[in-house]
């Protein structure tokens, strides 16, 4: 894929990210951090490719598997932790 194209979407994503959370109430900062931390586990996609795409090279595959487990913990743990926190706000909002 064209490098310039990749840098182009990176730049746009950066500006989008800056705008997205400019006004967030402070009590949502922790869930937001935790939720975006789960998104940074997107590296799980890279880990999948690194694991499967290196089948004839044991060392690289091992690195990939470890990456996959770690990224998966980050993703699954991150989403559930965030949901647990937000579930509490929900209960309160229902009052």
């Amino acid at each position, binding site marked *: 894929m064209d490098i310039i194209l990749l840098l182009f979407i990176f730049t746009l994503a950066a500006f989008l990210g800056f705008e997205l959370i400019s006004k967030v109430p402070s009590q949502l900062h922790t869930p937001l951090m935790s939720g975006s931390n789960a998104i940074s586990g997107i590296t799980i996609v890279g880990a999948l490719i690194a*694991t499967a795409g290196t089948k004839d090279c044991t060392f690289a595959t091992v690195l990939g598997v470890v990456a996959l487990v770690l990224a998966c913990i980050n993703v699954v743990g991150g989403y559930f932790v965030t949901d647990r926190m937000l579930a509490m706000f929900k209960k309160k909002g229902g009052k």
Partner: protein
Amino acid sequence: MNADSQTLMQTVNFVYIISSILFVIGIKMLGKADTARKGNIISAVGMLIAVVATLFDRQILKAAEPMSWALLVGALAVGSIVGYLVAKKVKMTSMPEMVALLNGFGGLASLLVGWADFYYRGMTSSISNMVSGGLPTFTLVATILAVLIGGVTFTGSVYAWGKLSGKISGRAQVFKGQKIVNAVIALASLAFSVSFCVVGDPQTAHLCLIASIILSFVLGFAAVMPIGGGDMPVVISLLNSLSGLAASAAGFVIENNVLIVAGCLVGASGVILTVIMCKSMNRTLSNVLFSGFGAAGGAKGGKVAGEMKPMSVDDAYYVLEAAQNVVFIPGYGMAVAQAQHAVKELATILENNGAEVSFAIHPVAGRMPGHMNVLLAEADVPYEQLKEMDEANRILETADVAVVIGANDVVNPAAAEDKGSPIYGMPIIEAYKAKTVLALKRGKGAGFSGLENALFFRPNTRMVYGDAKATLNELVSKFKQ
């Protein structure tokens, strides 16, 4: 590439676009109280479809044999089970260090992805007579960035986790010449990184990569070491941003859109959040990172005059019993003592007793922004009673009693009055304005930042020593008598 596999690749990339959109919508919705939970689920759906689509990626289908499928499914299963269990088991009070640890895992994963890709493509490629195994310089730069940022994120997060969970001292660790040592480490890793990109020979490049990995680990520790535990929220926020950038860099390595976009979104939003947090402490990011704030033997601020006056729980009961307007000011001590439910119980009793009750939430109280809100929400404290700093300070002017529960620096009047104090200029909750201040505190020691708190020496302050939860429960039972 035949037509079929091209269609498949386009489909996978199309799904990645949908994932990216879901992430954007998810983050947007996470920023609003009534949509936050839905936003998190939407972003989780985006993640799920990205993972499923990746299983149809050309490279994975190419490797479609029982052994590699077993590896993929096995690793995903192990990661999911562990992730689910830690998320369900962790106490609400230890949430900040949990986020730090998960964040570290993400950083390490990005590092490993970069390393695996280089080892495979750079070392074993048939065209290895070209520069570093035929990988373009751009890919090499992306690889070294993923590795360096991922490595720093990993050890930095683990160190932050250790500090927050009390496994290592929360104090800033500073020593003479630390900045020089850190600068040398940073320069050395830079030197190895540049060599990695330009050296040409794959074997040598790989050694440079390994050296960079080790140095990035050291750098992560070294960078967080001089930062006091009180500033850990800022550090975690920054590391969260970095783990996003590491994922983004890994995305450039394997030329994957969804990694680049999602990682970059996290990186950018993390920077904004970090800046917001620094502002609420009236400090700059560089001041947080490099000042060695709160180190043992560091600046202590002016001597505090007067003495701390203790008060028994019995007397505290009479004070509260007569109060018309009570403001609770929770801090990390409330989290440590797991006292949020006891606080809520006391608040309800005081309300039934005819008092006006509110909770003053400092933006950086606890170990993360919003930490107190989460804990109080867990205890069912109504949303309307939670007051942000400005409103809380107006209420405090007419309050009868301010109950400080394990909060320290965020109520320290030295921040407003003592120019010599290292926290001078930080906006605080003005607890001292209340007629009486009850400070629930475990002992006489200084706070997490290592500073003496001038509030505790004020004439209108009474110290109620002991475990906050036990004290609160005792007060509750006195009201019930």
